[in-house]
């Protein structure tokens, strides 16, 4: 089996029914997709397969044969963050960071599909992704703002939900 992984060819030798998540992590050493439940329930392993978000833990290696697989490593690098990655940093939308790669992939796919960025649409698009830390609000705000682009990355975004009193 062969896949195109983040733009480069990769040979896959795992048995054909191995979950793609296992192929990525244990055979190919691509570690951003996380094994949060390995049962489709948390979304921490979501990757793009031919541009569409899919749970890597539910995808048989053979089902990805010949596909283009993109993990969050393929979206941007620390030096050149993708718009969604920038927004996640700027809005402090990651806390422990374990669900973040799956969230970033799902958010990227949602925006690439032309999502309007409304709160209703974003929560629907991300509703299968479990985050225990953030309460989702900063994630939704980050995705809503991601297309605006140029953030001052040395500071975090102001929150419209907060009032401070001395």
């Amino acid at each position, binding site marked *: 089996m062969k896949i195109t992984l983040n733009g480069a060819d990769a040979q896959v030798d795992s*048995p*054909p*029914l*191995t*979950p793609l998540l*296992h192929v990525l992590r244990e055979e190919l050493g691509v570690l951003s997709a996380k094994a949060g439940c*390995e*049962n*489709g*329930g*948390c*979304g921490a392993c*979501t990757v793009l397969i031919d541009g*569409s*978000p*899919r*749970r890597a*833990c*539910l*995808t*048989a290696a*053979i*089902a990805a044969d010949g596909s283009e697989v993109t993990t969050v490593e393929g979206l941007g690098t620390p030096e050149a963050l993708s718009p969604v990655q920038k927004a996640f940093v700027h809005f402090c939308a990651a806390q422990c960071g374990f669900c973040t790669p799956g969230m970033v992939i*799902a958010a990227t796919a949602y925006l690439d599909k032309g999502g309007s960025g409304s709160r209703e649409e974003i929560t*629907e*698009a991300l*509703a*299968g*992704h*479990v985050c225990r830390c953030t309460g989702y609000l900063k994630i939704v705000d980050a995705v809503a703002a991601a297309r605006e682009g140029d953030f001052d990355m040395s500071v975090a975004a102001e929150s419209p939900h907060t009032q401070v009193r001395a």
Partner: protein
Amino acid sequence: MAATTAVLFPCSPGEAIEAFGDGDGVRILAGGTLLVPELHLRGGAPEQVVALSGAGLDFVKEPCDGEIMARVGAMTPVDRLCTQPAPIGPAARGIGDGEIRAAATLGGNLCAPAGFGDLQAPLLALDASARSAGSDRERTESLEDFLAARDGRLLLEVSYVAPLEMGGGMHLRTTTDGRRVFDDSHYSRPAAGAFASLGRPHAHHFTVMSVSGVRTVGGEVRLAAVGVGPVGVRLRAAEALAHDPEAAGAAAAEEVNPSDDPLASGWYRRRTLPSLVRRVLSELEVGS
């Protein structure tokens, strides 16, 4: 995920039926959402897996001229059903999240263990037929019989009289001896569909309970539910009282025997089933 498992890739429905044989020792890889984690986490090692992705079973055939039947292939991804008229569309939209719906298939959903069969109820309400293959080769039966049998057959497609809004259909048909006759089957064509489910907006937990309903051109009402037993069931006692939603709801609660699971108790399901029945009947605009 044993390395020894043989994976077959049939290229047509015929090849799929051939590969499946009598189904002994065979597992089906459809969308993978159930089989892949099961083999990975439980370590099962089936002799043979038949992967249906290229078997020509991914289709939604809405009725065209001369037809009144809609046909949906077992490999059709759930997300392709989301735009179908009620009750199929809203039931499909309640399954998992977009990523799951893009992978999961109609066949996988209908044949899945208890807790997953969201699409059973809408198709039971549509009085769908199931075409399957297995030890006695191909067979077409009511979906209700197919679900009741649970005898490990390969589901190929489901078909049902298409709702009016899907178009197609005619009132005359040609018999085998060449006569053109008036066909009264249009009286069973769905004129309205409705769906109601319990549960907060959800994406990563399963449906607690839902009711699907259909009203035909002829005024017949068919109701079905999932979440009240291991598989979806027709609510025939409720159907008989459809003109009286209160009575229909009460009858529905009497004719099911739901059990406790992590999502809700049998008591709660029985207690709220009448509400869903009433909601569906109201949407179907039957009764008072």
